[in-house]
């Protein structure tokens, strides 16, 4: 999975971090101090379709079928997250109780073309 840089135009992972103090959310989120959200961007030319690491997904199967049947010319490939990991959070809820939870699929780890 590529990391986005100034000269990368193909599908890549853009690092994106929000510090909770900067958005005044640190009063109710105890931990962590920020959120590494990250996101995917960039071009997905035809030769990159279905790579990397998305072969097992439902969408990849559909796209493969479309390619096999020669009807892929009308469909463009998209740059999407192929791997995510959870974010552990400790925060105050509306009743001032402290909640600790692992929120699934919050942090984009890698990107690929559908």
């Amino acid at each position, binding site marked *: 999975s590529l990391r986005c840089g100034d000269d990368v135009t193909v599908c890549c992972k853009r690092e*994106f971090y*929000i510090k909770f103090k900067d*958005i005044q*959310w640190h*009063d*109710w989120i*105890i931990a962590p101090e920020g*959120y590494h*959200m990250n*996101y995917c*961007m*960039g*071009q*997905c030319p035809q030769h990159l379709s279905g790579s990397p690491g998305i072969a097992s997904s439902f969408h990849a199967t559909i796209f493969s079928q479309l390619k096999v049947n020669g009807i892929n010319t009308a469909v*463009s490939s*998209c*740059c*999407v997250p192929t791997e995510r990991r959870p974010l552990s*959070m*400790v*925060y*105050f*809820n*509306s*009743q*001032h*109780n*402290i*909640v*600790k*939870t*692992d*929120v*699934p699929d*919050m942090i984009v780890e890698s990107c690929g073309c559908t």
Partner: protein
Amino acid sequence: GSPRCASCGFPALTKDAEEKLMIEVAKQQLLDKLHLKERPNITQAVPRAALLTALRKLHSGRVRPNRTLEQENNLSKKDQSYEIVSFADIHEGDGGAQASLGLAFRFLQESGQSIQVLQSSLWIYARSSENPHRAPHLTAQVFLSADGGASGLNRTLVMEKMLEVHKGNWHTFPITRTLQAFLDSNQHQLRLEVTCDEDGKNLCSLDGPADSPYQPFLVAQVRLRDNHSKHLVRKR
């Protein structure tokens, strides 16, 4: 001439606009995943000492010898379970002849949500006995008070436990069923009373200011029930 987004076809944004948009997306994603309509408005912060104590106890609870919490986690890999630490609003109750420590915990379930309690414990600090000639044990009792009812007049014994009081220590009282019954009843305030009576003195009541690290709290591991599991429960 202007570059366009490869995935959605919209015109590309300027760097500032993109950053603002991403911050809004991140905020919305966090609120959605935490099942919150808006950011909680924190008007009354929990004292730092009490917060640190609770978090330390919560962490130590995960690795205690009976491994209960870890086992529950393994059982519920598919479901998103979470832990709640709730500090009590404290009032000195009047449990009949002997003084009791009155605790009120606030929980509010959003309408349509149903919460399953996997495990829950009340954490109480008992001071050391002031009488060196007494037996080093005393009986602690936890009562459930009727919401809005006069304390001591309408209460049910939830559990009783022998405590060692030769030195001050934290003690846990499992209240999983009590908390589940409370949440199922859609009430807003769980009221408990604790007595650790030694010659008319309650060793479980707070000695110092309310911001002491010995503030009682409740820990619960819960998960949202989905409609499917609700159906299974009804069927059974």
